[in-house]
């Protein structure tokens, strides 16, 4: 399943790019904003899938990388006036470092214990940042409006921000595919299926898991910088919000964990649905309940997610859908 002969993958990449460029071509900021939340979700869900879908480790508090990246990026921009590019890089590195340091410790835990440990880390990070003066403590960091000047004012800056996001989303899909079709990916999936058997087969489980966790953290770290640069301010309760982390799990589950296409469909479908429920007059007040109900139906009747259901229902599709 090398890169050249994977039609499903190139198709997915092409479609994501095409839709992503739509607002840039039409220049319509409203479409851009709607697509912004969707592409952010796709990139985050795609990254989470590497540790959740491929390796079978339920990272509950995955938002901690998004929040930390955001904080590091904004700290650099607000204090040292660095360029957005350097800040994004720093955000990614910080998240990667955290994943690496934590990984070797908590990856020894399995199943529910690992999930709880990630919750613990997210809450500990939120409480820590709340008391950490350089990150602005409870008031967080807010950027002066002039920070957009070097990029040609706010409007240009937001378009640039969006452009980078589309690029990062494509990168996350590429990374997801490369990992899945590589030997490293095969090792991860073996760990997911039966970690002890994988070890006996010769897979260095701790190292592979730590690498998977690291890979699943870098892009969220970068996305954090993008998102909070656009918002021009960041607060602890906002950056380490457990609810949005659980939403990521829902997206991967909805789409089909352990596949490349799954998180993309899951994230897009979930965000469109939530967006619609929020704006529609009919569901507006009970949109939380309706989303909950739909999630329950999916968990009960289509646990393997949309992609899983499709490949089970039509096995021939398995070659095309990745």
């Amino acid at each position, binding site marked *: 399943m090398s890169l050249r002969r994977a039609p499903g993958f190139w198709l997915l990449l092409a479609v994501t790019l095409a839709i992503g460029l739509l607002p840039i071509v039409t220049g319509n900021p409203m479409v851009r904003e709607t697509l912004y939340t969707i592409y952010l979700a796709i990139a985050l869900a795609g990254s989470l899938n590497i540790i959740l879908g491929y390796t079978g480790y339920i990272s509950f508090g995955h938002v901690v990388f998004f929040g930390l990246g955001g904080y590091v990026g904004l700290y650099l921009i607000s204090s040292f006036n660095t360029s957005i590019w350097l800040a994004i890089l720093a955000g990614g590195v910080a998240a990667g470092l955290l994943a690496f340091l934590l990984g070797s410790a908590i990856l020894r835990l399995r199943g529910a214990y690992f999930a709880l440990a990630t919750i613990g880390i997210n809450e500990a990070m939120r409480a820590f940042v709340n008391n950490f003066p350089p990150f602005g403590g409870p008031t967080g960091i807010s950027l002066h409006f002039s920070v957009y000047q070097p990029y040609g004012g706010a409007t240009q800056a937001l378009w640039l921000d969006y452009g980078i996001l589309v690029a990062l989303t494509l990168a996350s899909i590429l990374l997801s595919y490369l990992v899945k079709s590589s030997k490293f990916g095969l090792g991860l999936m073996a760990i997911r299926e039966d970690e002890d058997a994988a070890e006996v087969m010769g897979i260095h489980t701790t190292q592979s898991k730590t690498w998977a966790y690291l890979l699943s953290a870098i892009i969220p770290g970068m996305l954090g910088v993008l998102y909070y640069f656009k918002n021009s301010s960041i607060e602890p309760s906002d950056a380490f919000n457990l609810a949005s982390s659980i939403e990521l799990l829902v997206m991967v589950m909805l789409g089909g964990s352990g596949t490349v296409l799954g998180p993309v469909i899951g994230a897009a479908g979930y965000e469109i649905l939530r967006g619609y429920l929020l704006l529609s007059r009919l569901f507006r007040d009970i949109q939380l309940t309706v989303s*909950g*109900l739909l999630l329950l139906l999916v968990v009960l009747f289509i646990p393997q997610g949309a992609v899983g259901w499709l490949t089970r229902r039509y096995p021939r599709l398995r070659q095309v859908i990745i």
Partner: protein
Amino acid sequence: MQYLVDGLLIGCVYGLAAMGMTLIWGVMDVINLAHGIMITLGSFGVYLLATSLGMNPYLALIIAGAVGLLAGMGIYKIAIQKVLDTSHLSTLLATFSVNMILLGLATQAFSTNPRSLDIDLGSITIGSVTVQVTRLLAALVSVLIAAGLTLFLKRTTPGKYIRAITDNRAAAELVGIPSQRMLAFSFGLGTLLAVMAGGLIATFFPFTVLSGDAYQLKSFVIVVLGGLGNPIGALLGGLVLGVLEGILPAFMSTSWVPVIEFVLFVVILLFKPTGLFGVKK
């Protein structure tokens, strides 16, 4: 000294809240993400019974508990039973969807403005320690319920069934224990404990639809502290957390306390997953 007593009292109630979670987790290896909203609904249940029917809150507690038991069994049948043996992810998301549904309905019904049960039973002063009667009562009731639960698990046949299932569900089924019914019952029991804890909390704290989440996080910490699936462990874990929250502020600024709490939580998970008081794998 005052710090210690405050910590112990609130610790009992935290323990009770966590007991529901540890029971469900121990028996069916499911982390109940709807635990927080159940605690909140417990508070609202007692609040409504007390204000609209003028019922004594502690009596309302029992009714709320009974309703909680039935509701819990219902939720188990609808949402949990089907995904019980599938992946952790499915059970986690199943309980999370229940949380979303209940939270959506509760926000719709009660909106998010805070309510408080104005029960003023005054306070007693023993030596240098002044203690609120409502808190004392809440702590006593928590300990009573904990004892009741332990007796129930040890002495009664359904209690033994539940413990058998906790150890090894397959084996329990082999010897003819109606596991599905017992699982539904234990999920109901877990809900009952959560609802009662919520009711007790309502007697001395104001609460809103959203206050459940904070208690859910605390319950996670306590369950791990006390040892998975061990009700008495949960109570002791609750006491430890309560004392910690009481003592720590004396040594550092209060906003550092959550940092210590969660770091401790991760450390215990790493090095002593069976918790301080052990039991279960």
